[in-house]
């Protein structure tokens, strides 16, 4: 009679607990918890394991993962937590020095993963987080680990680690590659669609700020993007335009009034008005056509007018903020003088 479900689950739990105890684990919090959710760090209670036997060794790797892991149960040897439990042999030919360099290698690997996750989520990178989730007791080696990790990031991914706030020790990962061409990555979290968005915004702009859906597809078809065909960057283009970008408020998609059978049109959404500008879009279009914005005189004029209005709006906003600030500072000054 096959094992019942409950008994299987119980046995599984027991096995997990047993493994956790014998290894004297430190629950790995680095990559997962780095997202700021400590309890959801890793599935189950496994540590960050670096594979032992299967991987060919380089000086960076824990090359004798076997030599690092000594007798069982020693919770104080941190390298045990990151070495594969399969590492069996007991003797370390190089002694403590090699353990430290192995540990530092492992920390570099873990830090790179941490940075990659932060990069993909566009989250700020704080020194405090790096220390807490990755470096831990090796604070003294922080600079070395960070330097090596950022070298790796630059070499392998073409991404630079820059300290953007020296007082608060905040870092950012800056892409060294120019992304305007593939529009598949960007500072914006929904980047895969940005290139297509700029083109669509351009078409709408050129059609007097409201474009019939057919006109949009005419242009996109020329680029090899079709409503009924999967695209290797944009996925399902029809869905991207009519659903995703609308939900994100970059586009408005509405039925043409009194159209029967129903036809649809696109307009700029409120977020497009906020984040893009007619001039930006015109510049993008000019670049695509290998020319300059002034080559489109009437649109250039309209874009200029739009820029003026935005500048005026910004100035007004600044004046308003400044006025508020001075009122506030006067209030503070008067209360403090009263206190004196």
């Amino acid at each position, binding site marked *: 009679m096959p094992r019942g*479900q409950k008994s*299987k*689950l119980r*046995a*599984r739990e027991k096995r*997990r607990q047993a493994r956790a105890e014998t290894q004297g684990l430190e629950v*790995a919090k680095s*990559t*997962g*918890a*780095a*997202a700021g*959710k400590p*309890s*959801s*760090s*890793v*599935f*189950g209670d*496994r540590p*960050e*394991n*670096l*594979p032992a036997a299967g*991987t*060919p060794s*380089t*000086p*960076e*790797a824990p090359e004798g993962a076997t030599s690092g892991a000594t007798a069982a149960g020693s919770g104080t040897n941190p390298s045990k937590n990151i070495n594969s439990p399969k590492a069996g042999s007991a003797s370390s030919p190089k002694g403590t020095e090699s353990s430290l360099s192995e540990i530092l290698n492992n920390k570099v*690997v*873990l830090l*790179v*993963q941490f940075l*990659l*996750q932060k990069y*993909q*989520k566009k989250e700020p990178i704080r020194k405090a987080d790096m220390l807490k989730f990755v470096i831990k007791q090796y604070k003294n080696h922080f600079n070395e680990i960070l330097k*090596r990790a950022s*070298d*790796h990031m630059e*070499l*392998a*991914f*073409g*991404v630079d680690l820059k300290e953007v706030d020296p007082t608060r020790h905040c870092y950012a990962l800056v*892409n*060294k*590659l120019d992304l305007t*061409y*593939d529009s*598949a*990555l960007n500072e914006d979290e929904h*980047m*895969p669609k940005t290139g297509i968005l700029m083109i669509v915004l351009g078409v709408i702009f050129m059609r007097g700020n409201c474009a019939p859906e057919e006109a949009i597809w005419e242009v996109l078809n020329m680029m090899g993007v079709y409503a*009924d*065909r*999967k695209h*290797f960057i944009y996925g*399902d283009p029809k869905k991207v335009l009519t659903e995703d970008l609308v939900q994100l408020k970059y586009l408005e998609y509405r039925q043409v009034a009194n159209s029967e059978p129903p036809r649809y049109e696109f307009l700029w959404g409120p977020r497009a008005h906020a984040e893009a500008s007619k001039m930006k879009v015109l510049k993008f279009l000019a670049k695509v056509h290998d020319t300059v914005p002034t080559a489109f005189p009437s649109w250039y004029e309209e874009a200029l007018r739009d820029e003026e209005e935005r500048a005026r709006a910004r100035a007004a906003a600044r004046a308003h903020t400044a006025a508020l600030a001075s009122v506030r500072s006067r209030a503070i000054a008067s209360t403090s003088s009263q206190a004196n």
Partner: protein
Amino acid sequence: MQGNTKKMGVMTDVHRRFLQLLMTHGVLEECDIKRLQKHCYKVHDCNATIEKLEDFINNINSVLESLYIEIKKGVTEDDGRPIYALVNLATTSISKMASDFAENELDLFRKALELIIDSDTGFASSTNILNLVDQLKGKKMRKKEAEHVLQKFVQNKWLIEKEGEFTLHGRAILEMDQYIRETYPDAVKVCNICRGLLIQGQSCETCGIRMHLPCVAKYFQASSEPHCPHCNDYWPHEVPEVFNPEKERETGLSRSNKRSSRSRQH
């Protein structure tokens, strides 16, 4: 920075852009990956000959090796399409998902994963998964929410849905192979031919061995009367066709239009 004896490949911006784009997508099919490679060459260096994909990827992997990351190639379990994902070898958890989902959502995935692995068909019904909603760690989740979370998993290519049932996406199988083998050692199924982790497949009714559908296709492609490789009994299931990328291109079918005609056969 290396100074090691093993020859490491050279990374150029072509490779870096490719890596960044692959990272954004999570997982890509072979045809898309080839187009991606072409695109990266075009952006940086129009005139260079495009390196063979396998060499291109091995090149990148040799640089990523010391970081315990690699571009891994796998095959979709239902129709044998080659897929590629950037996989983290340094951990045996499912931590790649951990940054995109909340604690209770991760636990839902874990419960679904467990049901899928324990099942005979490799599929877990939506109902069975949703019934476990009360047992989730973290913030309480209602069934309606859980349905949306399951859809999020599908969108992010961790699960596949077919007729109200869920199984693992090829991406999840690639990323979590080690984790699954270590966490569920007695429930995990393995293909008799390739020895790879098996979630969906066909099984012999006599001796119980299992094979991936694409492995069945390749193994039996030349035989008119298929027999079980283990017990030699007549193989009772329909043998699928071997995946042919050329044929796919000709018909120009988009994946979403093609209905999988293969039923699950266990």
